[in-house]
């Protein structure tokens, strides 16, 4: 029996050695995909986002405000136009993300204390960019208003602490817990790399079995004996390869960037192992629906491609509807991500992870129908 496993394992290693495609699938292609995504986001923080200005006042007050806005790292005054209409066109053509309009008589109204309004119009179609710019503009505009107020208060009270307190009686301190590097880069990577990884596991499994059946060599290979062991042996080289690739992205996320990892790597690595096996089981399950190479690839694509959206990392699971949560439960990577995040951030002990680990392990039950279907097919 173990001979059968050994035979299938060595046979698959030989196959990989002889096929550029299979070799690339477990080496260059995933590594290149990881590298491409890392490179795309490596700037991490967004800065110099173009905005457009409509200054209808052109006083020293408005110039001071615009100077302060331009001095922030986040936005860049790229256009200055005379009418709101022109400014809006620039936003609609995606040339600028926001417009800041300073009304005429801005200075006069400040001096008369009739509180003029600075209008900020934001392209909130791009939610993230809209939020970043909104935050930056509000901060600088409020601070600039504070400057004027501070001077005014200082003249009255001659006391700087009290002058500040008059501007904002309560201040707000914000602390992002856990993910202390509020850097979008690592945040995205921690979910994106596993999403790419799961696509590769499914596709590679399908390529390995698909090519065998397409070449009509399955009878020769399985020979009607020890079918289960041979399936396992054939999967094994890829289990090892994807464990190594998993460790690679884990090392990148938590090892190289000094991102704090509170929990146990052993738990995450164990979860990773269960995830690889789960996806191999799912891939074979898709394959046995018709034993057709191209068709199973189409099914694999439909299954793995949308996973990222369901991870609950960009959009919280607590706000998802039941259909989304159901589909999410069908994705091993979603359960894996929960473990990765809870280990990295909170370091909860293995007993608290047990239900998640059990869920991941449960995907292996798919091997039962897989083995049955293989037996049926090969003994025909």
């Amino acid at each position, binding site marked *: 029996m173990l001979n059968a496993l050994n035979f299938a394992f060595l046979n698959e290693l030989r196959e990989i050695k002889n096929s550029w495609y299979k070799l690339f699938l477990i080496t260059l292609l995933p590594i290149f995909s990881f590298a491409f995504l890392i490179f*795309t986001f490596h*700037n991490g923080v967004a800065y110099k986002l173009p905005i457009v200005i409509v200054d209808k006042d052109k006083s020293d007050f408005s110039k001071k405000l615009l100077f302060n806005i331009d001095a922030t790292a986040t936005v860049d005054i790229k256009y200055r136009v005379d009418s709101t209409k022109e400014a809006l066109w620039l936003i*609609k053509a995606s040339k600028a993300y926001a417009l800041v309009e300073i009304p005429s008589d801005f200075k006069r109204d400040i001096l008369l*204390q009739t509180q003029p309004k600075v209008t900020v119009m*934001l392209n909130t*179609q791009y939610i993230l960019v809209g939020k970043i710019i909104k935050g930056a*503009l509000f901060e600088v505009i409020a601070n600039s208003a*504070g400057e004027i107020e501070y001077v005014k208060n200082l003249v009255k009270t001659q006391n700087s602490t009290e002058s500040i307190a008059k501007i904002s009686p309560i201040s707000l301190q914000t602390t992002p817990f856990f993910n202390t590097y509020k850097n979008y880069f690592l945040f995205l990577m921690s979910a994106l790399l596993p999403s790419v990884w799961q696509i590769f596991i499914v596709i590679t499994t399908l390529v390995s079995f698909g090519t065998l059946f397409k070449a009509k060599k399955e009878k020769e290979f399985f020979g009607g004996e020890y079918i289960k062991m041979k399936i396992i042996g054939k999967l094994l080289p890829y289990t090892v390869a994807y464990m190594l690739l998993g460790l690679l992205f884990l090392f990148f996320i938590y090892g190289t960037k000094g991102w704090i990892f509170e929990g146990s790597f052993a738990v995450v690595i164990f979860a990773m192992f269960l995830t690889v096996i789960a996806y191999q089981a799912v891939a074979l399950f898709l394959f046995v629906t018709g034993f057709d190479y191209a068709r199973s690839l189409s099914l694999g694509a439909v299954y793995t491609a949308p996973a990222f959206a369901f991870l609950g990392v960009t959009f919280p699971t607590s706000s998802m509807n039941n259909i989304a949560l159901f589909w999410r439960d069908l994705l091993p990577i979603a359960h894996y991500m929960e473990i990765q995040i*809870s280990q990295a951030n*909170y370091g909860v002990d293995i007993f608290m992870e047990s239900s998640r680990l059990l869920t991941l392990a449960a995907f292996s039950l798919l091997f039962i129908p897989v083995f049955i279907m293989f037996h049926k097919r090969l003994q025909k």
Partner: protein
Amino acid sequence: MNFFEVLVQEAKLIFTDVAIVLTIVGGVVFYSFLYPQPYEKESVSGLSVSVVDLDKSDVSRDIIYKLNTTPQVDITRQDMSERDAKEALEATLVKAIVIIPAHFKRDIALGKSPTIAVGADSSYFLIYGAVLEGAMKSVLTASVKLKVANLLKANIPLSSAKDAYTPYAINAINLFNKNNSYTEYVVPAVFILILQQTLLIGLGILGGGVNERRTRGEYLHFKEAKTYQVMLSRYLIFGTLFFVHMLFYFGFSYELFGIVHVAKMSELLTFGTVFITAVIAFGLFLGALFSSREIATPVILFSSLPLVFSVGFIWPIEAIPDLVRYLSYISPSTPAIKGFLELNQMGADFNAVLPSYTILLTQIVVYTILGYYFINKNRKTNEQI
């Protein structure tokens, strides 16, 4: 062989292939329902928060009350200490904590500007933003109330006190996607990518399959049919099918998920037709390069995530390296997503999308020439054998 016969043969070849039909019909319809699901409840709201009130004054209770009334926040716990609250956060019982310091009321009265601490699990970016927004709002309103009260104490009449609490105000207007809906943010862009990727996989399986058969010596109708007839047939068959898909996505699905659509029908369809044509041209070219049926799906699939993230709607284009940006223009989805968002979500006129439109037209020309060249070359190599 006349053109009509080629067209019929091609249609048979395409629609009898389960793998192709599964993708270009099944995949397209399935995704149109599945993809918008996570965001169906729209905005992030009602996140559970724990409050630690170390002051227990009327002012602190007022702030907590205000915080609880903001839609983003739902106060589910009151903890006695920062430590208890943090433990609740770690056990994921709450998503954020708000701490009001001791002597809060006294410090305000003394003019000392005390600090309220807000902490949220920023592993989940949106949660962090939502709680912060809710906290900001309630603290700001409390702040303004106190300021006006202070001004009133200084014998300034209420009307001018209300105006004078700050020298100028900010009037913020969300231009598009006013409710910060995630559906409106993600779905319109992802839909374009789905249309492209399924179309490319379909054409890729077809092209690769034909190449594979040829190496096995099966020529089907390709011996008699001319290259331009084959290409034109595929433009027509895939073009018609995906034009219908496009109407289904922009019409039915947009209505179903309540997505804003503001483009003029004529402009949307003009732009859309050019987009679909460009994708078919690209797919014909790629299909000619694939040596078997099974290469297309992995290749197209692996490109999906990089493509969606290099477009610039999730992550600003200014922060994406130039090399990635230029590379992404190989794919019709890049100019198409930009153009469609501008036309249909932001209400731009056609002038604004002309740059994207021109890129798509260029892609049609380039990929049609490349496709013709490679399909012809494949045929000749095998005829010599």
